[in-house]
């Protein structure tokens, strides 16, 4: 046996040992009396992380606790509740709930409908491992929805799932090639992202490994700061040219425009519509899975809860609301958040962090440190990334989708709505909770 075979066998044995122990831990922790004392924060309390692990393990919403429905941030989704119909007046459990939404509301271009009102957010190769990208793509295929490449390129292994993979075109143009543009049924232009609005993508040097650098055609171990904004776009008209360029290469592609949430996000929405977007993706400031300056996360651009109704109402007043699909992201953690986002005016949502939590993320925020994520998620370290087996990861994400679908159907039944589309913009079905509702948490990290 050669030395490299021996090393590989050794690495596999070590990985197997830790993978088994980790999976056992993911299953055991949700059932224990108390969560790990150092876990969680106000946005994602420990109980919510564990409830997400439970859903990813079972495929069903937890029973007997509402920990899986909200965080403890004292604002936004965490201050909104629902006005349920009185017991017995909702829809019965036999009623089928239609969760599908169209992604193209224009009278032309291909009809694409997804059976659940969400798809996966862009996470680049480099920010996450190829295994994680594959897991998400497999889950998207299973559910008939999508995931996005992010801006780090298009690994060859993803082509098998290309009908469920959105090709992202971001300011760094990493991985943007004719073949990847032709592969996507949806092309997503990333103008900005919620976690670092106005700053462009960040991949710190430690994570720009040889394989990542090769994919991005850059230099290994050198930090990659994508420019901001697109240097060719300074107006809606410039943006229209971008769309035309992509449509020339791939005439059948739907166009998604991903923007952040500035004070004029409503104007941006209208501009995106007139530039030819089928999907407007608004990304609020409290989400994000990748590296971001701490100052940007909290302080630049508004949270998604404020942006959704602003955009929805403006599109309505312009008479174009039903010609564009609005997808919201940036802090969507639960099925209840999904329902609240839709009630505020979105058509659907885009999930990022919750998928990573399903695969074991503890939200420790060490994604950018050294070799990357100790759970094998946000890393391309050859050893650590083996902790995620794509098939296992896909099962976890798929189970979370299943739990979300069941929970969302329950919410709609309790509101008496047979279709998720009926919930859009129904702020009359929401309640604003008192300021101290459910607040007894002290962030200790």
């Amino acid at each position: 046996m050669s030395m490299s075979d021996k090393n590989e066998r050794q690495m596999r044995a070590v990985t197997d040992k830790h993978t088994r122990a980790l999976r056992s831990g993911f299953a055991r922790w949700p059932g224990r009396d108390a969560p790990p004392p150092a876990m969680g924060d106000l946005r994602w309390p420990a109980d919510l992380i564990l409830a997400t692990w439970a859903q990813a393990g079972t495929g069903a919403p937890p029973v007997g606790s509402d920990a899986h429905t909200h965080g403890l941030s004292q604002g936004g989704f965490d201050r909104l509740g629902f006005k349920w119909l009185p017991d017995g007046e909702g829809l019965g459990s036999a009623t089928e709930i239609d969760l599908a939404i169209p992604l193209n509301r224009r009278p032309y271009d291909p009809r694409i409908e997804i059976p659940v009102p969400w798809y996966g957010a862009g996470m680049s190769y480099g920010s996450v491992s190829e295994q994680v990208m594959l897991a998400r793509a497999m889950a998207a295929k299973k559910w008939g929805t999508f995931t996005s490449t992010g801006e780090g390129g298009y690994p060859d292994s993803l082509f098998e799932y290309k009908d469920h993979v959105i090709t992202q075109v971001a300011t760094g143009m990493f991985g943007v090639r004719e073949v990847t543009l032709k592969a996507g049924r949806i092309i997503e232009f990333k103008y900005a992202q919620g976690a670092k609005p106005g700053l462009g993508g960040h991949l710190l040097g430690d994570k720009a490994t040889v394989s990542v650098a090769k994919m991005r055609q850059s230099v290994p171990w050198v930090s990659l700061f994508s420019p901001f904004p697109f240097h060719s776009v300074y107006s809606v008209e410039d943006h229209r040219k971008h769309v035309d360029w992509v449509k020339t290469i791939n005439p059948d592609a739907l166009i998604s425009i991903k923007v952040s949430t500035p004070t004029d996000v409503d104007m941006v929405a209208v501009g995106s519509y007139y530039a030819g977007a089928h999907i407007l993706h608004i990304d609020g400031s409290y989400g994000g899975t990748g590296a971001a300056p701490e100052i940007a996360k909290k302080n630049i651009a508004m949270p998604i809860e404020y942006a959704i109704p602003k955009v929805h109402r403006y599109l309505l007043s312009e008479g174009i609301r039903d010609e564009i699909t609005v997808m919201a992201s940036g802090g969507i953690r639960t099925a209840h958040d999904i329902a609240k986002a839709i009630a505020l005016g979105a058509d659907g949502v885009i999930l990022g962090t919750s998928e990573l939590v399903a695969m074991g993320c503890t939200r420790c925020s060490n994604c950018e440190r050294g070799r990357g994520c100790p759970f094998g998620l946000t890393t391309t370290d050859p050893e650590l990334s083996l902790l995620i087996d794509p098939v296992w990861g896909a099962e976890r994400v798929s189970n979370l989708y299943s739990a979300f679908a069941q929970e969302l159907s329950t919410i709609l039944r309790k509101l008496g709505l047979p279709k998720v589309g009926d919930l859009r913009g129904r702020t009359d079905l929401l309640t604003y909770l008192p300021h101290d509702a459910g607040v007894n948490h002290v962030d200790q990290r």
Partner: protein
Amino acid sequence: MSYKRYHIPVAPAPNSAPHPRRFNVNVSKLGLASLLIREIFHYRGDMSTVLSRPCMYGVFSGPVGGFAPRADNCVGCLRCTVQYPDMVRVEPNPDRLDLGDSYFTPDNVDTVLYEAATGRVPVKGAGYRGRYGGPGWDGMWTDMSEIVRPTRDGIHGREFISTQIDIGERPAWLSFDEEGGLDGNRWQVIRLPLPMLFDRLPDSLLSGGWEAALLDAAGSLETLAIIPWRALPEMSSAPPALVPLVAPADVDQLLEAAWRPRMVEIEGWDARAFDRLRTAWPECVVAVRMPFGDSIDGPLASGCRTFHFVADFHGRTSSGFVLESIRLVHDSLVVRGVREQTTLIGSGGLTAAEHVPKAIIAGLDAVALDTPLLIALQGRFRGECRTAGTCKVEMPNVDRAWAKQRLINLMGSWRDQMLEILGAMGIREVRRLRGEVGRAMLQADLEKEAFGEIEGYVHV
């Protein structure tokens, strides 16, 4: 005059005093021994696999591994406790609760220490972790632009964003006498390359040698340090960074000094002291330092155009929080038509990088920093640190060069973070940010607009 691009020379300056670790790691020794024995049999003596540890940060890297965990290395990823729920327990270190005080939180302290040690912008993954909005600074978000950018090369590229400001009095117009000479209108400004000054230290630290470090760092940064006059050592000349803070009763004595500063600050409004200084030192910018909420009528009528308003270290003023107080005084000067001729410096409650651009948006020209300087130097508050008169701070024994570098690093990091905010907005210079509340989003307004129609909504 040759062009010089402003640059802050950051360099590593690690903590010199012990700092409480973030986490404690407890391992059940019995459980670990039992696991090892089981694994030795399971893996048939393959010790490489048996001894492979669930930590990539070296917590279990000592000679006896988990039997003596190196908790200082723990970053709280929780992988060990996830893998072995019955054996490993990672807990927040309760000693950290003693860091800072009720306003300057332990997390805030950690951030400032990182900034002072590295001079870098803190970058982390996994999104925002904190409270949704909140009172004070947290109730404001800054705007950004999707397509506008001040430079095509990024904020650290060929072109750059100016953080230069002027401090002093700037007449709206110049007037001339019959012979063409300037007719009394003063253009008396000090040009600083960044809108951050160092404010006076708490009384308990005065004359403890820290003033020298402040002056060293301020000099290197080309900014100013406000030092109580009575705490100054004997000097034959004034360092360019020095702003002596003087009580009105001491002005006559100050004027006997052999040196002249570029700027002097009077503690509280006193018309006689102001006139004396302006007359005796005409090239000197004379500022008045007073609490937020004090009337500006008298100073304005007397020709004072440089104000340093002060809140307590927790940002409290007579009319509420410092953010609102800044807006009040800025708006008041705008209404009087003298805002462009006036300089507003503010202090108190500014404990994080984001507070600086927010304070400028609210209406300040510059901030004068207080408690973050103490934390950067690894000072430990003893009890609540609310005012310069009552705050007790335990400072470590450090050398002057280290202290200077720590302060330079802090300013380097905070300036870079301000550039992130300005860059995101597409603003090329910080002077344009002053009073630009249109580039801020306030929680009260956003909440009303988004949720106003929802049952149960209460406008705050």
